[in-house]
């Protein structure tokens, strides 16, 4: 997935932006750097992917504040938080707000490279999950009202015979609908179907 290999850098110090940028480019990653949290906010939205290398302490909006804003706005991008002073409390806060990891300045290239790769992998699998969820949702939405009725009863663990009685249909008609549901949901077994539909409930 080449389209999500983007590293965003937000740090007020140009020397840090440049150095982090060099390391990221060596990973064949696209780099976009910002001096202020506001500039990054203006450039991102819910569909932003990749990872964010973020400085905790900045003159206007701090890294922690930016993280909070992103969370509130539903921008789910893995954040690599950097701090210039070993501040345990800040690290705890960043992590509890869902930061991907916390690096203490100064760190080495190897550590940063590895962390960026891991964060990009996380971003990638998150995107995959979203895509899969959307797919399942659209499959589900393609079901007719009658097919959904059957799906409901399957999930409740009813047998074909019970369904036939309940829906006042022939066993044959139930079997037909059942196989259409399986086909449209692209599932091969009841277990498969249940776990797929489960995803819908979690969204």
């Amino acid at each position, binding site marked *: 997935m080449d389209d999500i290999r983007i590293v965003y850098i937000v740090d007020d110090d140009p020397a840090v932006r440049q150095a982090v940028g060099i*390391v990221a480019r060596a990973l064949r990653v696209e780099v976009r750097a910002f001096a202020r949290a506001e500039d990054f906010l203006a450039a991102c939205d819910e569909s932003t992917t990749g990872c964010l290398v973020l400085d905790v302490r900045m003159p206007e909006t701090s890294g922690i504040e930016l993280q909070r804003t992103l969370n509130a706005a539903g921008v789910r991008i893995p954040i690599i938080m950097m701090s210039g*002073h070993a501040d345990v409390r800040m690290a705890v806060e960043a992590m509890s707000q869902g930061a991907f990891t916390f690096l203490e300045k*100064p*760190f*080495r290239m190897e550590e940063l490279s590895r962390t960026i790769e891991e964060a990009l992998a996380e971003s990638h699998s998150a995107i995959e999950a979203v895509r899969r969820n959307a797919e399942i949702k659209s499959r589900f939405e393609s079901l007719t009202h009658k097919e959904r009725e059957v799906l409901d009863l399957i999930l409740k663990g009813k047998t074909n015979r019970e369904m036939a009685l309940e829906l006042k249909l022939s066993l044959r008609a139930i079997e037909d609908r059942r196989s259409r549901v399986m086909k449209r949901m692209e599932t091969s077994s009841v277990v498969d179907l249940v776990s797929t539909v489960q995803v819908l409930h979690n969204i």
Partner: protein
Amino acid sequence: MLKAADQFVRERERILQIILDSASDVIVTIDQSSEIVHANSAAYKVFGYTASELIGQPVTHLMPEADRERHRSGISRFLRTGQPLKSWRGLRFNGLHRNGHEFPIEMSFGTVQRPDGTFHFTGIIRDVTALVEAEDSRRQQLGDLAHRQRLLSVGEMATGLAHELNQPLLAICLQADAAAEQLRNALQRNTPYQPESSRVAIDESVAGELQEGLTEIATQAQRASRVIRSVRGMVRRDEASKTAVSLARIVSDVLPICEHCCEQGGAKLIVDISDDLPTIIADKTLIGQVIANLVQNAVTAIQSVPRQSRHVWLSAEEITGDRIQVEVRDSGDGISPESIDQLFTSFYTTRSDGLGLGLTICRSIIEAHGGNIQAENAPDCGAKFIFTLPVYCTVRPTHG
């Protein structure tokens, strides 16, 4: 008739003697040759001599060697000019006890001109040992506070430095590592398996040394950062010792300093701290330091208003979210809008004599306790500094 007058005089002398002897201060009268002509009974308690032992002795017996010449020249100057050198009230000297021990005294003089034109001098002498000790201990306390403040300033500066220096150090680390990496990549392209065209003209041994040098630069940059960190660690280890403590206790410990400070600035301190606030976990000296610092700032801020309206309020209350809120408010002119945002920034100050670290240190301390601190202008007048601290447990402190 004469006899009756004589008796009257004697009776008056007797009453005078009783009055003099009932004083707890020593009252000594000397003639102009500094010979003691009268002393009251308090002299025994203070100097170790009875009144009768003192009469006829030079008063310089009651002074340490070093002060005697000053006494003599003071007397002779007065006799020559009729003018005392300085006001003869509440002077501080040292007294000399019979046992050789020196102690601080406070003294006032009076002069009496005799019918023959000569002078008598009466001195009222108070032993101020206890007072001086109390003053010394207060000075000591203020000195300790100043020492602590200096230590904290070092800590705060180290924190500021850590941030400022770790930025360039990070750039150094990453740039050096990246350069070493590029060199490694370039060397790999020089293997015989690579086509001649993509090879780089570089001497392998030079390249190896460069690579080592670059890696060493990054290593040393990290080491520099560790040095700063250890300075902070040192200061911090020294400072922080948190215990469960009540706010009332913290305030009562720091109250003498606050009161002293208000007294100096002609301000009235109004304290409203309830005994039954819940316990907090805190380094009580550090939180005390914050309170003292805020009070001190408040006193400085109200110097421009008339003395009778200089007030400083110190209060605390429990607020929602299991927190205690402490407020220091003053009756001054408030904080100007342009400085309100920068108050807690290192090295920002509106005072010519300030370093601009006080509030920064306060913020560090409060934040290290899991609280926060802010400044605002009070609706009626003056500035308000508010900090909150998390409650440790809602069990009320037991008294005693």
